[in-house]
């Protein structure tokens, strides 16, 4: 994806009120072909409402949007070019996977034969070919999510909206779904709008992010941009042999701009943090690397080292006042 790729989703001042409550407030953004845009926010931040507005399930109170060049006033045409995996999507338990996708293929105007072929191909694409003729009631949650993604692709969409696609999945299931997300953007060239709580997912697959808070856009940009904008502090926690805590502490104390603190509960754990305000880009990594170099030079083996801060998770928590719900 490049900055010159075709804009496929464009929202301008999108607002949705339910009675006196504003669920989405003046949201504006654009997404391009091949881009995976992560829509982040706390529970109730307006992510799902934004997705429902852009997919024409809800009508905006004010503002406007275009999807694949189609104006918001043509909802049925927009639904023809988008694929959606809704949050908590339900499935008819008595149908088989292939029957389910065939039905949706028919709803998108495919002939019975074409819908059948599309169903089989999509089930293969999402790794469910072996269970195509099993009732959905026998599918695991991960399989249902992949089936839902298959349904979202049945019309070969220009834009795919995935609302919490990895929610409740085990790590293997999450990995499969994220692989599919990447594949949709890279190989199909579709725009993916990924609404999620799972920040590691966003870091893994998203090219850009949009953080919503109380319905409004807090920040948007690449993962790196957003992380820097949050000015998240950089720190780390390392573990050294208990017998070498003294030499380790002394070695670290000699590193400029670094504060060292031992844990009372776990004396072998040392917490290190860069002094002062947020460092410029790249400086934080250099500071932490100097700490590691000092330990190695002092002959202290590092048993574990975990960097804190500087990740999207930290930026998210800082920006959304703790990320609580």
């Amino acid at each position: 994806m490049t900055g010159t790729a075709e804009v496929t989703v464009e929202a301008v001042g999108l607002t949705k009120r339910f009675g006196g409550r504003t669920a989405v407030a003046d949201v504006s953004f654009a997404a391009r072909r091949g881009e995976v845009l992560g829509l982040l926010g706390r529970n109730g931040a307006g992510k799902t409402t934004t997705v429902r507005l852009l997919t024409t399930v809800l009508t905006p109170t004010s503002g406007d949007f275009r999807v694949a060049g189609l104006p918001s006033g043509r909802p049925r045409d927009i639904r023809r070019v988008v694929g959606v995996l809704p949050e908590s999507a339900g499935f008819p338990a008595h149908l088989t996977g292939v029957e389910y996708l065939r039905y949706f293929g028919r709803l998108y105007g495919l002939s019975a034969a074409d819908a059948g072929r599309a169903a089989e191909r999509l089930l293969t694409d999402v790794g469910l070919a072996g269970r195509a003729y099993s009732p959905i009631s026998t599918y695991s949650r991960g399989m249902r999510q992949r089936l839902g993604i298959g349904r979202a692709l049945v019309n070969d969409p220009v834009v795919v909206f995935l609302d919490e696609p990895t929610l409740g999945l085990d790590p293997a299931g999450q990995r499969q779904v994220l692989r599919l997300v990447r594949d949709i953007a890279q190989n199909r060239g579709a725009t993916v709008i990924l609404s999620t709580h799972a920040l590691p997912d966003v870091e893994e697959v998203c090219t850009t992010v949009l953080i919503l808070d109380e319905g409004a856009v807090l920040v948007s940009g690449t993962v790196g941009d957003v992380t820097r904008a949050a000015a998240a502090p950089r720190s780390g926690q390392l573990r050294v042999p208990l017998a070498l805590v003294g030499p380790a502490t002394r070695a670290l104390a000699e590193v400029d701009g670094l504060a060292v603190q031992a844990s009372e509960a776990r004396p072998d754990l040392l917490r290190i943090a860069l002094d002062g305000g947020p460092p410029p880009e790249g400086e934080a990594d250099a500071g932490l690397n100097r700490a590691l170099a000092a330990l190695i030079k002092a002959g202290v083996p590092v048993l574990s080292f975990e960097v804190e801060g500087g990740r999207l998770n930290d930026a998210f928590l800082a920006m959304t006042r703790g990320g609580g719900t």
Partner: protein
Amino acid sequence: MTATVAAQELRDLWVGGRGPVLLFAFSVVLSVVTYLTATNQVLNFLERREAVNLTLQVAVAVGALVTLIVSADGVSGERERGTLESLLLAPVSRRAIVAGKLIAAVSLWFAAFVVTVPYVWVLGRGVSIVGRALVLGSVVGTLLALALSALGLLISALSNSNKVSLAVAFFLLLALFAPTQLPGGPPQGWFGNVLDAVNPVASGLRYLSAVLVTGHDWTRDLAYLASPLVAAAAAGCVLLLTADRLVRLTGGVSAG
């Protein structure tokens, strides 16, 4: 597109859903009623034509009312099962969605009617009203099924939960069916007559009695069919015309 939705709804009802169970329950009810009508010492004073009428009335009333229960689950049930949003996301008009559900619900009446045919035929042997009973029963039953299915879908679309929808539908069912069980005889007064006339179930069943038992010509009491006809047309039109506004992710009248 209505045909695609209807085909799937029919499949959901008859292959994976409650259709066969409800039809079986209907058959049991009809069997019991027919048995009692034909053999019970207290009831066997009935003439054949009265026995046919009684069985047909039960079949029409129960068969049509069952469609109300099925349709009351149509929108609110899908909301709660999480399957409605996917349907709303497809490029299908909401009118086509409710039309498909209406067809599926009414199919339950047609199946019930098919089950009714042999019962009426057995009870009506020896009197020449079987053909007339089946034709009139199918007309009245179809009108009632259309009216009640459309009402059920309207209730379902407007209800905030499936429980509320089913409870309201059940109450409506009782309200429509209970007056038909009142003993006839003394005049009910103008208010009672008005209530009777506006109740499509009571009116429809009274029409069947007038033709099958009293022996009136089928054209003489057509006024009784006005209520079922108006109810079917009105409920059907309101449902189809307001589908775009009523079939939403959330129930009630104010959500957007």
